[in-house]
């Protein structure tokens, strides 16, 4: 495995004040290595999405540091912050967040347009991603004219267009049927291997998590357990079984069934 890409040190995030204070994250520390496909699992309200949003700089942590390639992203401001959001990370939302009045191609090219990248290069990259994600024929369509799976793949292409160091995915299969979900996860796994992009995915679906190479379990704002897939000898179905065992242990099993 490669060197450390992302390092989280004692991350805390609380909402509200004094008596009404809720601690969404209560001192989380871990490292993500380059090229890794990391899963974050936990029950609803465990703090997994808060963690992802802190890394994506969508919310400010109360305490702690987030270092990407050794740089503290909490200190980023203005242009550098916008640059970080658009170039260093790619974000995949549960409900796609495609702009419904832009065509798929325009949606994919939007980040590079925002950051003023070379148009030619962006268009080439767009074609490459469309080819990889099997969606060349829907580039001219509007989001309302394509399926959910295609929408999420379009969103993935948009997240990857500026070749981010890390792809953050928040329940990317949450709004998809099982067939589309499987296809998307295979593609994300492929992106991780073929494009050497680090992926960090929040999910509560054990099946989706079985594509990951490592899984962190969060409960009540702290890391509670870690699972590592034994590659290459452990098969995906064996890993899936192990994940189920841990989720069952995480509070008698019933707490994780949503």
């Amino acid at each position: 495995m490669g060197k450390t890409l992302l390092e989280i040190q004692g991350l805390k995030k609380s909402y509200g004040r004094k008596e009404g204070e809720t601690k969404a994250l209560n001192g989380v520390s871990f490292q993500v290595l380059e090229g890794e496909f990391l899963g974050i699992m936990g029950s609803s309200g465990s703090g997994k999405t808060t963690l992802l949003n802190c890394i994506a700089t969508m919310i400010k942590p109360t305490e702690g540091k987030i270092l990407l390639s050794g740089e503290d992203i909490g200190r980023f401001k203005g242009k550098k912050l916008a640059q970080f959001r658009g170039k260093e990370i790619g974000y995949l939302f549960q409900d796609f967040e495609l702009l419904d009045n832009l065509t798929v191609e325009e949606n994919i090219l939007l980040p590079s347009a925002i950051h003023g990248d070379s148009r030619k290069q962006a268009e080439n990259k767009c074609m490459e991603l469309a080819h990889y994600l099997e969606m060349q024929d829907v580039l001219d369509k509007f989001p309302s004219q394509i399926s959910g799976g295609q929408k999420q793949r379009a969103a993935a292409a948009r997240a990857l267009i500026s070749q981010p160091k890390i792809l953050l995915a928040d329940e990317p299969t949450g709004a998809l049927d099982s067939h589309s979900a499987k296809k998307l996860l295979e593609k994300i796994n492929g992106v991780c291997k073929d494009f050497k992009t680090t992926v960090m995915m929040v999910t509560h679906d054990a099946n989706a998590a079985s594509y990951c190479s490592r899984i962190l379990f969060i409960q009540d704002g702290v890391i509670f357990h870690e699972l590592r897939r034994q590659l290459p000898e452990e098969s995906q179905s064996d890993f899936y079984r192990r994940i189920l065992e841990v989720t069952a242990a995480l509070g008698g099993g019933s707490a994780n069934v949503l």
Partner: protein
Amino acid sequence: MFYNLIKRNSKSDRKENSLYFASLIISVVAFYVILSIENQDVMKFIKSMESDAVQKLLILIPIFYVFSLFVLSFLVFFTTRYQMERRSHEFGLYLMMGMKRSRLFFMLIAEDMVNTAVAFLAGFPIAILLTEIISLTVSRLIGLGILEHHFTITWTAVLWTIVGIVLIKIVILSVLSGITVNKEPYVLIKNSDESEKKRTKGQGSPVFLLGGFLLLGIAYFLGVRKGLWEQMRSLLWILLFGITGTYLLFKGFYFLFQKALKKKRKGLRTFTLRQLQESVFLKSGFLASCSLLLLIAFCCLSFGISATFSQKPERFTDFTFVGEEQEVKEKLEQAGIMEQFQNFYQMELSFLSTFEGEHTFSCEELLKAIKELPPSENRDILINNLGYLDAPYIIKLSSYNQLLKSAGKEPLVLKEDEVFLYEDPRMSEEYVETLQEALKTGVHLQIDGQDYLMKEKVMSYDVVTDDKITLMDALIVEDSVFEILCEKDSTQSYWNAILNDKIIENEGLIKGFTDINKELAKTGLEYESYMENMGRHLFYIVSESYLSIYLGVVFLIIANTAIGTQFLMYQGKTGKRYQALFALGADFSKASKSGRTQVCWYFFLPAGVAAVSSVFGIQSMTNGLLSSYFEEQQSNIIVIALLVVCLIAVVEWVYIRTVMKNSDRNIHALLERKRDE
């Protein structure tokens, strides 16, 4: 608790939709100003002289009032719907929390009534102050005595303004609130946007665009033709072509955006263009309507304001008395009025009767000279008019020179065998020019068998102050010739008088005149004064400019507020897109810039189309609608009208800035919300 909620909600409505609230206040002001017109000093003054005409004008006011209420209801409907949609989620929650539908309905009506009351409280003081200022300014400008001014509140105007606005509000609110509260809570909470389905229907746009240009082109072409207003049918064609053309054009803009989208995409350009394309396409009918409203506003304002600037009738004779010399002079001296005149002279006229062979008269040579001129409309009129000239009036040279002296002109010089031709001052400049062209050839006319050379110049200073006598054509002859030709029986004695400059300086024009008029009324003399002339002029100004400015202002604010509100409504509905932009790394400045560009174009498209159309509209209006009184000042009016268009551009800019600020605030709120999530 419930009343506190109403109070708080209505306050936040005012803040959220300040544009609408401000428009409501301006509407209150406009309604009051027009409804209280009867009590304006200048109106009272005109009424004392032209009471019939003023009565007719006052009958028109209720029609204007009802018409503008109708247009205002368009704005009220529109903004109320916006408010309802914006707060749909909140209403859904009230229902879910167990509020009865009837109570919610009552709450919505009560909230709006609180706001309407606030608009009245803010609007009426402004309106009353403004009417006072207008009244005083107009009085001062035309020289009415300010001392006679009384502060007045026209209670009927207050009443009708309240009745009108409250009525349309109640009707529209009842309908819209009724619809809203009867929706299921889930529908209200979700407040789904149904724009999706319409999106792909814009395929045939190049046809729309071409059709729009074509129809508007035809309307413009028809509009600038002369004699348009006499033919009802071509007027209807213009309306049909113009309105359909505007609607098609706005539908066709989709195609232009599509073309623009093919070019380079930098920053948020694609996003901005797509937003505009969608918003313009989805609301093309609405924007076309606003554009037409703006067109009416532009035309009315330009026309109204420029009519105000039209020149006062020239003043060189203040009074004309009719009567024998001795009687007139005696009565004037007795009343002590004579000393107030700086000039008093007789305008001696005589009728050259030829019917019973007393005299002979011929102007064949002049007719021949005119017939030789290149064909023109004026030439034909001249041939027709002069064909009937067989017994002209003659004017004594020394009398006419007195008149010229009062007007500050050089006196005329004539030999015994020469005459000047006098023409009615109401004839157009071109008419007189054509006549002078014919006279250049050295034309003679014959009176009693004797030749008289007609001088080249045609004189057109009215011989009396108003309309005691109207001379179509007359001859100015040398004094000795006049004595020979005049018939003592048909010689009428008109006495012209000019008021002392100092009196006008001290008391103002109108005060000076009204004072003397009071004295003159006691003498029983038959007379007319410059005031009647002035009164007619003021009547035209007031009726033409006051009403058009009023309509212009009402339409201008209604159209602009509707455009602004529509934009903000659309922006609110597409808020999620902005949040997606922030998630993709766009910062506030980029999103705000995109929002601002959208605002600019959203206003520019309807206003731009209206501006182009108004160039033709104003020309057509000045051609056809101006009273003949102003016709000779037409070119002047067009120049002022263009200046007014620049002024309107400033108003548009203020609206654009306000909506831009609102847009920034919305975007900022979206950014904050994204962070909070």
